[in-house]
Structure formats: C-alpha cells, structure tokens
C-alpha cells in the first residue's frame, strides 16, 4: 500500500513538473510569433514610407518636366515672336504710311501668335491638374505638346479620355512613365513616326508607344548601369503591379507596352 502511494506521489510530482514545463514552451512560442508579427508590421510601415517617398519624387519629376517644357517654349517660341515684334515695330517709319501699316499688321499677327502660344503654355501648366481629371486627359495633353513640336508624325488612339474611374497614384505614375518614354524617344530614338495607343480592357490599362527610330539593344542597356532612365521605368512599373514589354532591335525601332491593373 505504501509502495502504491509512493508510486502515485512520484507520478504526480513528475507530471506536475511536465505540466509546468508546457506553459513555458507556450510562452516561448507566443514570444516568437509576436516578434514575427512585429517585424512584419514594421516592414509594412517601411514599405509604405518608401512608396510615399517614391510618389513624392514622381510628382516632383512631373512638375520639373512641365517647367522644362514651359521654359523651352517660352525661349524658343514666345521669346522669338516677341523679339521679332520689337524689331518690326522699331523699324516702323511713320512717314511711309503704307509700309508702316504693313509692319503694324505683321506685328499684330506676331503678338496674336504669342498670345496663342501663352494660352497653350497655360494649358500645359494646368496639365498637372489634368491628372486629377483623369489619365486620359493627361495623356492627351502630353500628346498635344508632342504634336506642337511638329517633328513627328503622330498616330494616336487614346480611348481613355472619357474614363469615369480614376486611381490618382497610378495615374501619376503612368503619366510620368509616358513622359519618360517620350523623353527617351526625343533624346535617343531619332524617330519620325510615333504611335500611341491606350485603352482599358478587363480592368487592365494598356498603353503602347511605338516608334520607327534607330532602336537599341535592351540587354546591353540593362547591363550598363549608367543610364537611370530604364531602371526608374522598371521600378515604377513594379510599384503599381504593372507589366512592361519592351521590344527593340537596332535599326528597326522600339515599342514599349505597359499593362497596369486598374483601378
């Protein structure tokens, strides 16, 4: 009888010890899980911050681009027109009425042209706000500005103009991507024809820019770390979960297709 009691007592003592060790492991498990949760939350916050700073940078770059276009326009067009007007007016001879009349008419034409140019520039300044009016209008504005330069044959198929849904962050990034692609064409492509198509199908926004320029070798350019242009395009596409298809062969032009889930 005493033996049995002793056995039971030992059994109880050991099992109580086990029952005390179990919560210890439970606490350790909870601690580890909680730490993972904390890291996850902090990482998410970090990514959110990075995203916001990237958006800010994009906004600044779009503004910069607009300012540059305005500066170029002012210098090349409006400045020239007004200089010509000054020249014309300063050469007016009041004694020769007929010639003076002609010169004043010319000056009027030049001034009217300047006013027209300034109006276009004002629209371009407003162009930033067009991102709030929808990506279709913003793309349209960029294309208009490209058209004014006159050096390209443009084929446009922009089906996004009457789009009712907007996604402000994605709109800004898509506009910036278009600006960068157009900049690359102007700087490097030596193209004469540009084709721009955009449409929204099955909740995916498609944007395609094709030109008949000198083309380039995408693999070679990717490995060269010098140019930041393509890298920033790829980075921004990733940010909005988009896909970018780049086709280019030296001598045969380039086409860039962007597909972004939208909204």
């Amino acid at each position: 009888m005493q033996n049995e009691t002793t056995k039971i007592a030992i059994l109880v003592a050991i099992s109580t010890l086990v029952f005390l060790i179990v919560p210890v492991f439970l606490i350790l498990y909870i601690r580890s899980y909680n730490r993972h949760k904390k890291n996850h939350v902090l990482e998410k916050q970090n990514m959110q911050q990075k995203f916001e700073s990237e958006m800010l940078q994009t906004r600044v770059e779009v503004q910069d681009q607009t300012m540059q276009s305005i500066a170029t326009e002012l210098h090349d067009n409006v400045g020239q027109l007004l200089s010509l007007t000054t020249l014309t007016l300063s050469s007016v001879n009041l004694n020769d009425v007929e010639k003076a009349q002609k010169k004043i008419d010319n000056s009027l034409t030049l001034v009217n042209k300047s006013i027209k140019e300034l109006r276009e520039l004002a629209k371009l300044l407003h162009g930033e706000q067009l991102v709030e009016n929808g990506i279709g209008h913003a793309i349209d504005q960029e294309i208009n500005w490209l058209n004014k330069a006159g050096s390209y044959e443009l084929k446009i198929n922009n089906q996004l103009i009457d789009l009712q849904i907007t996604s402000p962050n994605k709109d800004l990034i898509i506009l910036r991507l278009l600006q960068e692609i157009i900049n690359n064409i102007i700087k490097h492509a030596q193209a004469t024809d540009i084709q721009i198509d955009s449409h929204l199908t099955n909740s995916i926004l498609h944007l395609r820019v094709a030109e008949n320029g000198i083309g380039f070798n995408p693999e070679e350019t990717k490995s060269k770390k010098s140019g930041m242009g393509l890298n920033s395009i790829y980075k921004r596409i990733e940010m909005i979960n988009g896909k970018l298809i780049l086709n280019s062969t030296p001598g045969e032009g380039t086409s860039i297709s962007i597909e972004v889930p939208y909204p």
Partner: protein
Amino acid sequence: MRYFSPIIIAELICLIAAITIIWKDKNAFGKVITCYLAIALVTEEAAAYMAIRGIHNLWLFNIFIFFEISTILYGLYHCLKEYTNPKPIFIIGAGIVYPMYFSFFINHPFADLNTITITVMSVVFTLYCLYYYYLLLKDENFIEIKTHPQFWWVTGVLFYYFGSTMSNIFDGLFTVKIIGHVTLRYCIYIVLNLILYSFWLYSFICRMKQQKLQS
C-alpha cells in the same frame, strides 16, 4: 515560523506591490486584485493560526474558494474583453463553476474541502487562459510582451491552475505521503503559489512602467 511560510511571504510582497502600484488604477481591476490578495493573505494567516492550534481549517479555504472563483473570473474577463466580447463564455463558465460549488455542500459537510470545484475551476480557468493566448495571437497588432501587464497576469494564472491539475485529480490518493515535515501536495502548492505571485508581481511592475510612460 509557520506564520511566515513561503506562501505568506510571497503574498505579502505581492499585496504591498499591488497597493502601491495598481490600487490607484482607474479601472476596477486594480482594486479587485488588491482586495483579493488581502483576503488570500488573511486566509493563509488564519489557517496557519488554526493549524498550529490543531483546529480543523479546511472550511476557511471553502470560503476562500468563493472569492477565488469570483476574482479570477473577473480578472480573466477584464483581460479577454480587450479582444472580444467574452460575456457569453463567461456566463457559461460561471454557470458551471458556481452551481458545482454550491451543490457540493448539499451532499457534503462544509468542513470538507470542495475539491471537485477546485478541479473544475482549474480546467475552466486554464481554458480561458489558452483562449486569451489564442486571441492575442490572432489579433493583427503586435504587443510588447516584456511590458504587457495583462499577459503576465494571465500567464501566472495559467501556470498555477494548469500546474495544479495533476495534484487536484489525484488529491485523495496521496495526501498521506509525507516528505520531510510536509505533504507532497503542500510542496506542490508552495511552488505553484510562488510561481503565481512572481508572475503577478512582474505584471504589476509592467503596469508601473506603463503608468510612468503615460504620466
């Protein structure tokens, strides 16, 4: 010497910490726990007093069990309500434990220790503690475990009631065993109480750190 057993010393330290730290808390939890600790201390002292004089003292613990059930249920309710509405499950739990407590005395004299209630209440409290951990893990926010008072309070409760399961179940079968001057059951009881009051003391210290940060 038996007036100052390890349990009583632990309870005293815990009570002093509770009075200085959590008594002035806005919510009722602080006051409830402090009163409970005071009642526990008085019960232990009275039981020691009776034991020395050879008077049967288990009925004291029967009274104490009632306060224990109420306080621990309230404490667990307070901790669980941060994450969910625990009223339904607590009504069920109370609906099991209290009737069992009172119905025991229909068939047994009050002098018998209410062991069946102790066993059932241990299981119920353990389940509530585990449920608290589950809700804590499920929640999308993380907590600073090192300084989270409720977590350590619940942990103390879990250690005590889960650890006492085996000795509760085998209660009648080995109380005759003596190790040194005390029974094994009493040894286990001392260890469990020390663990419980240590965790509670740490919980109060965490609460004190929280109060310092908030002020």
